[in-house]
C-alpha cells in the first residue's frame, strides 16, 4: 500500500507514475466512506446511507433515516381520533387509504365495533384499499424500473396510477391526501357511476400491465441488475420482521388479509403469490402478481357490493344528520361535542393491524377514555424493512444499492413517522 508520503507525491505530481513500484501503482486498498443521500437522484425518499466501500464493494452501510420525521405520534397524542386521519394520509403517501382504514380499525377495536360496520362501508373500504395497493405497487415497480434506465414503463405505470388517483379524487375529494375513512365507516358514499368507471380503469391497467411485463420481464439489463441482487433467506426474512411482498418473495407465506382475516376479505377469492429466491427480481414479480390479484379482488367487490348506509348508526361514532343538527338543540350539542371533544374511545390498549402496501401495518393505541389517544404508535413496515437494508447491501456493489433500495420500497413518510 502506498503510504501517505507517496500518495502526497502522487497527488502533487512530484513523482512520475512509472517511477513507482507495481504495488505502489495499485489503488490504495484502504476502505473508503461514501455518502449516499439524504437527497440523491437515484433514491426516492430522503434517507442517508453512509457506505464503507472496499473498491466498489460495500463492506458496511449505515442507514440513517429520520429526515422526514414529522412527530406523527406526538401530534396524534394531541389530536382527536378523527383529526389523526390527515396525519395517517401522510404516512405511506402512495397508499393513504390503507393507512386511513388501519387507524379507523384500531379505534373500532377499542370501541367494540369490529365486525359491526354496515356491509357497504366494509366493501367501500376494501375497494379503496385495493386501489391504493395498486397505486403503491405501480409506484414501486415504475420508479425502480426508471432508476435502472427503463423510463418507458415508468411513464406507463404512472399514467395508470393517475387514472386511479383521479377516481379516488372523485370518491374523496382529494387526489393524494384523502382522509376519506371515518371511525365507524367512510365519510361519504361512492360517487355515481363509480362501478363502470373503475371497471374501465381496471381493464386499461390490465392491458398496460401486459405491455410493461413485455418491456421488463425478459429485459436483459433489468434482469441482470435485479436477479440475484439483495437476496434474503426465508429464516432471515422472518426474524428481521419482514412482511408483505419482501417476505413473500423469500417464500414466507404470510398475508394479513388471509391469515388474520379482517373486514370482508374472507368472502373474497384471491391468491397470495410467493417467490423462491428472495432477490430483487422476485420482489418485482411478487408485486406484479399482487397487482393482478388486486384487480381480481376489485372486480369481485364491484359485483358483490350491497346497497345501504356507509356509516355506522352507533351514536358514539356517527354525526347526527345535518337536518337534525340545524333544527334540534340536542343534535346541535351532540354535533359540537363530537367535533370538539372527538369520538370518545373507552380506556384500554390494543394493537390493530392490516395488510398495507408494504405488509403488516399496525397501530398500537392506549386510550384513557377521552377523545384523544393517550399513546399512538404506528408499526410501519417501511421502517422494519429499511433496517434490513444494511444486511442486503453487504457484498454488493454501489450500483446495486439503487435496485435494492427501490425494491424495499421505503416510503419516507411511513418510515420516519
Amino acid at each position: 500500500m502506498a503510504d501517505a508520503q507517496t500518495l502526497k507525491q502522487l497527488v502533487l505530481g512530484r513523482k512520475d507514475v512509472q517511477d513507482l513500484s507495481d504495488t505502489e501503482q495499485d489503488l490504495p486498498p484502504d476502505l473508503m466512506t461514501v455518502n449516499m443521500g439524504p437527497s440523491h437522484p437515484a433514491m426516492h425518499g430522503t434517507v442517508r446511507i453512509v457506505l464503507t466501500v472496499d473498491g466498489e464493494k460495500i463492506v458496511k452501510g449505515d442507514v440513517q433515516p429520520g429526515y422526514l420525521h414529522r412527530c406523527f405520534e406526538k401530534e396524534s397524542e394531541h389530536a382527536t381520533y378523527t383529526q389523526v386521519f390527515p396525519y395517517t394520509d401522510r404516512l405511506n403517501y402512495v397508499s393513504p387509504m390503507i393507512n386511513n382504514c388501519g387507524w379507523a380499525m384500531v379505534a373500532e377495536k377499542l370501541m367494540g365495533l369490529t365486525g359491526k360496520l354496515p356491509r357497504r362501508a366494509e366493501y367501500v373500504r376494501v375497494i379503496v384499499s385495493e386501489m391504493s395497493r395498486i397505486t403503491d405497487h405501480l409506484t414501486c415497480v415504475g420508479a425502480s424500473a426508471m432508476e435502472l434506465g427503463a423510463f418507458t414503463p415508468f411513464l406507463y405505470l404512472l399514467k395508470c396510477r393517475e387514472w386511479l388517483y383521479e377516481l379516488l379524487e372523485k370518491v374523496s375529494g382529494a387526489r393524494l391526501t384523502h382522509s376519506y375513512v371515518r371511525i365507524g365507516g367512510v365519510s361519504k358514499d361512492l360517487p355515481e357511476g363509480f362501478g363502470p368507471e373503475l371497471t374501465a380503469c381496471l381493464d386499461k391497467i390490465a392491458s398496460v400491465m401486459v405491455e410493461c411485463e413485455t418491456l421488463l420481464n425478459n429485459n436483459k439489463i433489468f434482469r441482470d441488475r435485479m436477479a440475484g441482487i439483495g437476496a434474503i433467506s426465508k429464516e432471515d426474512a422472518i426474524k428481521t420482521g419482514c412482511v408483505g411482498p419482501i417476505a413473500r418473495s423469500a417464500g414466507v407465506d404470510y398475508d394479513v388479509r388471509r391469515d388474520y382475516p379482517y373486514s370482508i376479505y374472507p368472502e373474497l377469492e384471491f391468491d397470495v403469490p410467493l417467490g423462491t429466491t428472495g432477490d430483487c427480481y422476485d420482489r418485482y414479480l411478487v408485486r406484479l402478481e399482487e397487482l393482478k390479484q388486486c384487480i381480481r379482488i376489485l372486480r369481485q367487490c364491484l359485483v358483490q357490493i350491497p346497497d345501504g348506509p356507509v356509516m355506522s348508526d352507533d351514536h358514539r361514532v356517527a354525526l347526527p344528520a345535518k337536518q337534525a343538527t340545524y333544527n334540534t338543540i340536542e343534535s346541535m350539542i351532540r354535533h359540537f361535542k363530537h367535533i370538539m371533544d372527538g369520538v370518545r374511545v373507552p380506556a384500554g390498549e390494543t394493537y390493530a393491524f392490516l395488510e398495507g402496501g408494504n405488509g403488516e401495518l399496525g397501530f398500537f393505541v392506549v386510550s384513557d377514555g377521552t377523545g384523544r389517544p393517550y399513546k399512538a404508535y404506528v408499526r410501519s413496515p417501511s421502517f422494519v424493512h429499511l433496517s434490513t437494508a444494511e444486511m442486503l447491501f453487504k457484498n454488493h456493489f454501489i450500483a446495486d444499492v439503487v435496485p435494492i433500495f427501490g425494491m424495499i420500497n421505503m416510503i419516507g413518510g411511513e418510515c420516519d413517522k
Partner: protein
Amino acid sequence: MSKKVLDALTAAHPGAVVRTASPHGDDTAWIKRDELVKVATFLRDDPNMLFDAPVFCTCIDWLDWKPVGRPVAEHWDESKPRFTVAYQLRSTKHKHRIRLEIELPEADPRCPSLADMWPAFNWQERETFDMYGIRFEGHPDLRRIFLYEEFVGYPLRKDYPKEKRQPLVRRDDLPINPIKAPHAGEHK
C-alpha cells in the same frame, strides 16, 4: 387457543410472569425485567410457542395517566412504575401473537435488549431509546435513530412539551418559541 399461550407461559415461568390479560383479544403478559431474556428465549424456542417473528417494540409513558371514569387510585403517581416497554411477537407456524410488557421505574429505565434474538428489534429499540430514553442493556448499537445526536431530552415522554423547538441550525428569521397552540395541554 389464545388463552393457552398465556397459561403455558405462566406454567413454564411462574416466577417471571407478574400477570396476564387479554384486552380486546390481544394476549398480554407482564414480565419481570430480569427474567425477560429467559422468557423470550422460551417463547422463541419452545415447539408449542415458536414466536419467530418480531412485530414491534415501543414504550408507554404513564406520567399523565388519568383514565376517565376510573377511581383516582388508578391514576399514575410516583409509587407506580412510569414506563412500560411493550414487545409484540408473532408465530409464523401457530399464527398466535403475544405482547410482553415490562414495567420500568422512572429512576432506572433500563430494559434488557432483545435485538440479538430478533434483529428487527435492533432499530425498534433504538427508536424507543430515541423517543423515550429507555436504555436497552446489551443492545449492540444504541444510538438515536430519527433525531440528531445533539438533541436534548426524549420527545415522546409526556413531560416534553409539544411546542418545544430544538433547531439544529439556528434560523434568525424563525421564532425559537412559537406562539402556544390553542389546544396545547388540553389533553391533561
